[in-house]
């Protein structure tokens, strides 16, 4: 079956969640919801999806456009305030946090606030939403379109702390651990590959390439010097995966195809 690169991204990301069945996860707006729903259908039936909308253990009967609407709160365990759910990051409730981002660097720092110079010429983008909270305390999965302007050497603004972060009240870069932050980026999922982080350097390297994608393309489309030497080719997308995904987003609301 034919499939788009973005469909591959969603499916490969969902496969990664199979290792976390039964755990608590918090998912941000957009593709994370689609990925986690697919994972719950196929690989991790007991994963608990929580949303910063105050909705715990959500079922997602239909892919939502709004992260704060009835398709999220529908028959969740409890519908409380946004703070009740998102403060679960600080409490240590969520093993995994799943976010998107406009700009991601090789240390897994994410920028969703401004592109350019915050104090000079820049373009405003979405803003943090819950991304900073999720990034400070959970093991994050970051999903982003593979493009040299999006996968960069260093982000213009750290919205979500990755492995090399700002020392509070300064521009000095320090290791995440130095600030006592738990968790950290686990992987970057793009429409071409999955990158993980080297234990020592904390830099992203290509771990899994989707079938049919060329290494050269990844190198060309990555805005930093990326290690592809450890890359393996992922298993082919199955008919079941694709059909399930298309059934979940039957109207292609998330434009994955």
């Amino acid at each position, binding site marked *: 079956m034919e499939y788009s690169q973005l469909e591959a991204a969603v499916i490969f990301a969902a496969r990664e969640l199979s290792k976390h069945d039964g755990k608590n996860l918090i998912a941000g707006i957009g593709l994370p919801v689609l990925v986690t729903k697919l994972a719950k259908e196929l690989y991790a039936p007991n994963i608990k999806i929580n949303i910063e909308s105050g909705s715990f253990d959500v079922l997602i009967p239909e892919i939502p*456009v709004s992260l704060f609407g009835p398709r999220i709160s529908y028959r969740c365990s409890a519908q409380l305030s946004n703070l009740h759910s998102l403060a679960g990051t600080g409490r240590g409730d969520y093993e995994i946090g799943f976010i998107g981002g406009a700009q991601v660097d090789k240390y897994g720092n994410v920028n969703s606030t401004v592109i350019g110079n915050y104090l000079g010429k820049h373009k405003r983008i*979405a803003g*943090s939403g819950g991304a*900073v909270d999720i990034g400070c305390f959970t093991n994050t999965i970051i999903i982003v379109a593979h493009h040299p302007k999006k996968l960069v050497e260093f982000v213009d603004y750290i919205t979500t702390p990755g492995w090399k972060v*700002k020392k509070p009240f300064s521009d000095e870069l320090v290791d995440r651990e130095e600030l006592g932050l738990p968790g950290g980026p686990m992987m970057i999922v793009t429409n071409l590959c999955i990158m993980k982080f080297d234990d020592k350097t904390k830099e992203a390297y290509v771990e899994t390439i989707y079938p049919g994608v060329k290494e050269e393309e990844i190198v060309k489309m990555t805005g930093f010097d990326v290690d592809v030497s450890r890359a393996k080719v992922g298993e082919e997308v199955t008919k079941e995966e694709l059909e399930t995904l298309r059934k979940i987003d039957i109207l292609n609301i998330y434009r994955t195809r």
Partner: protein
Amino acid sequence: MSEKVVTLEEAIREVKNGDIVAFGGVLDSRFPMAAIYEIMRQQKKNLITLAILSLHDPAVGAGCIRGFIGCYNYLGAFGKAPCIERECNKGNLIIEDLGHNDSLLIFMAAAFGLNFVASNYTKGSDILNPKYSKIEKIRELARNKEKIPKKKYILMKDPFTENGEERVLLPAIKPDVAILHVQQVGTEGTCRIFGVEGVDQFAALAADKVIVIAEEIVPEEYLREDPNRNLIPNIHVDKIVELPWGAHPTVVSHYYDLDMEFIMNYVKEAQTEDGFQRWAEEWVYSIENHHEYVKKLGIERLMKLRAVKGLGFRPRTWLKGW
């Protein structure tokens, strides 16, 4: 019926220029749009808004809102908020970037009578970087300047622990007025919300004045059959307005769905200043009140948006005919 019940026009007259306004709902959900339109009609100035929202975009375009302390500036799935982006670029809108928890904690702290809290939700990020803070400029806009803290954050050593880890102090902000759109309000002000609660309760407790706009006014006794199900006590509500469809085009759980077409049209029109002016003329200024707005939307459009009982929304595959 209690004296609290007024018209939308009367309720919005309570909002003063330079007020700190907390809107209920979140983003494209249960957002008090009719209030946004009325704020535009009454030409409020220098308002400062808080928390996670963005469907206030038209009131930014109309020059009513000039300060924002919060965490989000997109129209969710509909992408960039055209007026927010434009007015921000022109220097007319000042944004203080926070994280989501901190945006909420500002209300929570005020709701529980605290002056500040030690929050850890931004460590490592540039949100905490003081060089990006614009709180002083926002302070200048405020009618009650003392309500806006002198600093966005302050760093201190934890005096309660052995190691004295660094903590981030985040100050409370008490809104002058909270404007909420809820599904049901009792005749005396008790509120019941369905689906996502956002920060409505904390905002209502924290604000000096609370305006509640509701899909329905219901008998107070009905809501009191199960007080555990109610989110805001009557004593905290100052003004009540009944406005069915008053959150259109945003989604109201168990009442109606997102009007995606309407929002997409807004986004398209508001790309340019002229386009936004035309849109505002058509959908706000030339419309006398909410009744006329609903009539202009038309029965056809509204019927398609109705939520299904037992679900709280209308499945998209059920959309054929109504």
